[in-house]
């Protein structure tokens, strides 16, 4: 077990038999630990699996590894949150988890050698199917009616009721993890920022944190404040857009149109920080590239207040309309138990009453969280996810304003960037958990004996939460799918990597 802000020597990660790892993980998960990542690492004789677990109550992490061989008894039946990790392991390393209830590839990677067509595409795979004369199947995607990312959805319907929804992604697979391993240091950050384009700051923060924890350096408070400001601006923009989109899907046009404009106002604030509306090239290992001076701080505070006032008004118009509330209430419920056992993260989990927010559970620095609070809802429906966003909008705006003011007052007192060592220390493992706007982003970096990457694992919140969407649709009306989908608003490329 180790402190989450420190790295651990690779040799200190206990190597055990797969059976011991299995019983240890099952035991820990029963006690309330959560699986952060479970993945394969190349070893001299094949592959080793590494499992990183987290206990939020004690702020402790644990890592363990084992040699799985060709096959091993699956963890999923006892520990459902492992289900996608095991499928991923099966796809990438050919290790078969025996007894996995639904073993098929996650992303349908094309083969490394040979023609791409030698393997079926994601939509050509086998799907769970309900038989019966009155049961019908509806296939949606991967090409959708809107301008969105590709994904394939199979509904098993009885009339208007959805009995089962299977979501098959993988169309966006770019093999980002491998690209990061091979990329020169200057190219890695742009790659990370493109893991999920709407969470550029979140993923960049996680990547930089992994590097800093590996190197064992502490960045300045000013850099932490700037990073928090950027994260909250990203949250503001995305929550505003999502609330508008939820309005649009219920057919409530005013909020939909207004929020489209206000989202741009928030994105433009980020553009003032670094020149990119999505916060690209803002962060760097060791801190932040662009500082905020007193004049910029004043100008930004003014614009932030105006944009937030507009957003609040626009969202309140929607939330005070009874027909919208009636449409949202009780739609797409996810049960607390399902959210816990599937390991949902972020907003999706908090709206079901699961208490988790990496900003409070795994703070990146010792600064006070100020006006940021762990917002929770218990009903788990679309309304809960909508109200949660609305609450977080207030917190994020207040936090961003305070941070801007503080940056303005203390301008020039402290640098926002410290030097990084030329190379990473060899044979160490570090973990970063960052609360992006969707939820907890987890990056795990392991260095080899030459200080180069041995493995780099990215777990986007969407990786966990797509299963939540499938659960939300059980016994719902198929016509409610678009609204449920919007209320999660998950990333396809974040999942597909």
């Amino acid at each position, binding site marked *: 077990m180790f402190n989450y802000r420190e790295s651990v020597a690779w040799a200190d990660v206990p190597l055990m038999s797969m059976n011991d790892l299995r019983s240890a993980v099952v035991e820990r998960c029963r006690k309330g630990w959560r699986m952060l990542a479970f993945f394969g690492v190349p070893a001299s004789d094949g592959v080793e699996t590494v499992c990183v677990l987290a206990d939020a109550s004690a702020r402790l992490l644990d890592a363990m590894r084992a040699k799985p061989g060709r096959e091993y008894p699956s963890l999923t039946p006892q520990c459902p949150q492992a289900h996608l990790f095991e499928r991923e392991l099966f796809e990438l390393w050919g290790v078969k988890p025996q007894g996995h209830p639904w073993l098929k590839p996650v992303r349908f990677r094309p083969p490394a050698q040979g023609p791409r067509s030698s393997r079926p595409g994601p939509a050509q795979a086998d799907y769970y199917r309900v038989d019966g004369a009155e049961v*019908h199947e*509806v296939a949606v995607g991967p090409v959708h*009616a809107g301008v969105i990312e590709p994904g394939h959805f199979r509904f098993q319907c009885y009339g208007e009721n959805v009995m089962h929804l299977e979501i098959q992604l993988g169309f966006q697979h770019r093999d980002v993890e491998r690209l990061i391993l091979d990329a020169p240091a200057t190219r890695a950050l742009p790659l990370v920022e493109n893991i999920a384009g709407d969470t550029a700051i979140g993923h960049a923060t996680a990547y930089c944190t992994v590097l800093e924890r590996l190197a064992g350096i502490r960045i300045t408070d000013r850099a932490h404040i700037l990073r928090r400001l950027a994260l909250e601006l990203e949250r503001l923009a995305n929550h505003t857009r999502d609330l508008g989109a939820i309005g649009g*899907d219920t*057919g*409530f046009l005013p909020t939909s149109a207004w929020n489209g404009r206000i989202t741009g106002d928030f994105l433009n604030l980020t553009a003032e920080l670094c020149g990119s509306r999505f916060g690209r090239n803002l962060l760097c290992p060791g801190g932040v590239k662009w500082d905020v001076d007193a004049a910029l701080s004043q100008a930004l505070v003014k614009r932030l207040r105006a944009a937030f006032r507009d957003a609040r008004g626009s969202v309140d118009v929607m939330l005070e309309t009874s027909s*919208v509330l009636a449409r949202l209430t009780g739609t797409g419920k996810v049960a607390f138990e399902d959210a816990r056992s599937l390991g949902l993260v972020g907003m999706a989990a908090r709206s079901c009453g699961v208490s988790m927010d990496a900003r409070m559970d795994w703070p990146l620095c010792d600064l006070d969280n100020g006006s940021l609070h762990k917002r929770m809802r218990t009903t788990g429906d679309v309304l809960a996810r909508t109200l949660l966003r609305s609450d977080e909008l207030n917190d994020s705006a207040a936090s961003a304003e305070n941070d801007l003011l503080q940056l303005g007052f203390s301008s020039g007192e402290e640098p926002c960037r410290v030097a990084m060592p030329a190379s990473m220390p060899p044979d160490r493992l570090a973990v970063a958990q960052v609360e992006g706007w969707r939820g907890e982003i987890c990056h795990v970096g392991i260095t080899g004996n030459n200080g180069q990457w041995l493995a780099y694992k990215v777990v986007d919140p969407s990786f966990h939460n797509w299963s939540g969407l499938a659960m939300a649709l059980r016994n719902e*009306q198929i*016509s409610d799918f678009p609204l449920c989908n919007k209320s999660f608003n998950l990333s396809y490329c974040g999942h597909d990597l």
Partner: protein
Amino acid sequence: MNLWRYLAEFALALVLAPLSLGIVNRVKAKFSGRHGKPLLQLYYDIAKLLRKGEVVGKGTTWVFSAGPAIAMTSAVVALSLLPLGGVASPFAFQGDFILCAYLLGMGRFATILAALDTGSPFEGMGASREALFGALAEPVLFLALLALITTAESLGVEKELSLSTLFNGFSPQAWLSGRPELIMLIFVMGVLLLVENCRIPVDDPNTHLELTMIHEVMVLDHSGPNLAFVLYGSAVKLWLFASLLTGLVIPVMPVWAHTLCSLLGMFLAACAVGVIESVMARLRMHVVPALVGLAGSVAAFVLILTLVR
């Protein structure tokens, strides 16, 4: 003379029908702070589509291609049974409202068959929803008509009972002759207008999400002239229901004044649809029957009131 007058009014209706959808869209745009598309956009769209070629799915038959034409024609013929601008239809006869209702039913049937002919699961879902809501709306319309007919009989209207007598200044007269309960039929016809024309809160004509659509998803596969027929047919249908609504409200007056009033009424009806679509969200699909049921209960209540006195 009367025939020519009616033909002039009829031509006016056919020309102006697409404008009402333009007004609806403009009102919605203003509510959400947008400028909105041109008022005449639907005319441009129809003109463009009529000049285009058509893409027809390989799996479809003539049923698919004939659907839009049948739906549009039946809407136009149904409109010709209505009194327009205070002029009674020359085709009116006792009981023509039944023909009118089932002409619309035939149009719906053709659209549903065309949708099923494509074999797409989306269109099948849309067809099943349209069939359900159509079946629910039909008895409501007849309950409302029944209330009008009973009132007409008890007031001793001498003329034949047709749309041209019932929806041509009859209702305001009845209010004044001690039958104010007929005012409630305005609500009933308003709900029917929203249901039959697939407007919010029943359906969302602006959505791009196939899974939530009712009417729009059934016409997804149409293109070119057939899509123009679909668009024009739905404009005529909206005009038809708005005419029924104004026919319940406008009292007997000279033809020129009646024409002006009914045009104003159409404008207000389009504005009302736009306002409703702006200030409220869609209902969940399984709540729609409750809305239609509410309209049905009101119609039944009016019918009881007209019967018991």
